[in-house]
């Protein structure tokens, strides 16, 4: 599903590499936590998979795409097979919940009756069936994050990338979001999640990949956040 081979990334404006000789393989259907201190390269890792950045060295494979070398115009195809969720939700403030989700389908040219069928389904999955006509600001943070997840998942992508999806949420709401991601993972979707939240990592006991200064320093099949803590 995902394969990084000796990947390094040095940003132009920065001296120290953000990632250094990282090799990681993630199989289909896995649930992986990506942890590490601030600036350890978690977001960079995810951005490489989305081809928001290209690696300075090494190779990145996602599904059947050779991400680092593919032609620019094929990038949209890659992204259509990946769903993304971010800490700050990234919803369109002037569109309703349903429109926000539908947007992801409109943009890739799905026919209108497919959209009308699929959107309510996915809103039901994330538990927002009654709130499809609300605007984002009329929702709590947790609900907004569900909308973001619905939008990422409405296209039934092969994998879901989440960059600190619970960073702005309180512990209870975070638990709800984690349950939702687990449910999505059970449908066979690979989930890769970067986080700081050790209580979540500790309670889920899933695979943990830890980065430190851009290098993989740990890769446990059923890990916890901090060993020495």
């Amino acid at each position, binding site marked *: 599903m995902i394969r990084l081979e000796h990947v390094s990334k040095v940003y132009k404006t920065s001296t120290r590499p953000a990632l250094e000789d990282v090799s990681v393989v993630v199989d289909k259907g896995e649930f992986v936590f990506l942890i590490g201190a601030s600036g350890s390269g978690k977001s960079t890792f995810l951005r490489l998979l*989305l081809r928001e950045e290209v690696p300075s060295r090494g190779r990145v494979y996602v599904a059947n795409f050779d991400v680092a070398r593919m032609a620019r*115009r094929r990038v*949209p*195809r*890659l*992204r*259509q*097979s990946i769903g*993304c969720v971010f800490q700050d939700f*990234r919803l*369109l403030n002037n569109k309703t919940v349903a429109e926000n989700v539908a*947007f*992801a389908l*409109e*943009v*890739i*040219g799905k026919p*209108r009756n497919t959209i009308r069928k699929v959107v309510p389904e996915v809103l039901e999955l994330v538990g927002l069936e009654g709130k499809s006509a609300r605007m984002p600001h009329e929702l709590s943070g947790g609900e907004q994050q569900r909308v973001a997840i619905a*939008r*990422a998942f409405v*296209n039934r992508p092969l994998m879901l990338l989440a960059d600190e999806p619970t960073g702005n949420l309180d512990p209870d709401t975070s638990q709800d979001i984690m349950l939702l991601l687990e449910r999505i993972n059970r449908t066979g979707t690979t989930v890769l999640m970067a986080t700081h939240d050790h209580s979540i990592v500790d309670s889920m006991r899933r695979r943990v990949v830890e980065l430190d200064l851009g290098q993989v320093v740990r890769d446990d099949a059923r890990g916890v956040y901090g060993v020495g803590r």
Partner: protein
Amino acid sequence: MRASFVFSEVLTGLRRNVTMTVAMILTTMISLTLLGGGLLVVRMIDKTQAVYQEEVDVNVNLTKDISANDKECTQDTCADLRERLESDPAIEAVTFENRDQALVRFKQIFEAQPEMLKLVRADALPASFHLRLVNPDRPEVISQTYSGAVGVDSVVDESEFLERLFSAFNGVRNLTFAIALIQAVAALLLISNTVQVSAFTRRTEVNIMRLVGATRWYTQLPFLLEAVVAGLVGAVLAIGLLVAGKVWFLDTVLGGVFASGVLSPIDGLDILLVSPWLLLTSIGISAVTGYVTLRLYVRQ
């Protein structure tokens, strides 16, 4: 890509920044109006030039004696001169105009200036031969040959007068084009800027679109269309202004001059001929500017 979706995005974009859109349309409009005005002046010059060049290059004015007494150019001096002119290989055509005909023409030209008519009595105007030359560029040869010939009072090279007239027109045309050019630069910068501002104010949306896998065309087409729509509206308004300018300015102020035939008038057909060029220029420039701006300044 669904057209209705793109269309609604374009409208949203134009409405989001109304002041900018209006400024862009106005500037484009003025630029194109001036460009169109310049083109119309060029057409007017061309047409006037064509009329004059068809008609005559050099006038040979006859002496007072002939002018007064030989109305049909039948007496010896005049007939000899005509024969000599007609057999000259450098001259293509010869027309005789007697004093009465000259007066009629003079009255037509100065219809709008009655004081001129009062100054000039019929017996002041000479009869003349109007010559069309084989080689209109070299009237001075004719001038030299026939000045001082029997019965000739003076040889007038009309192209001199035309040159002065046309140099005034060319001045007007150049001024118009100069302002149009500066305006065009302003319009270009505005288009480029509008596209940049549009892209900037909607970068959140565009980012989200791109993350869910929208193609570059899909995200950028609305900005391009915005520029083109504004350019189109500007061009249509410019054409409207040209028509209004013709009706309310040219036809009233210069009506007399047109009627006299000194200048060929600008008519609806001329505007009709210039219009598609204005539209094409506007659409072309706004599309190209928009596209280049998107490629160069808007990070994808």
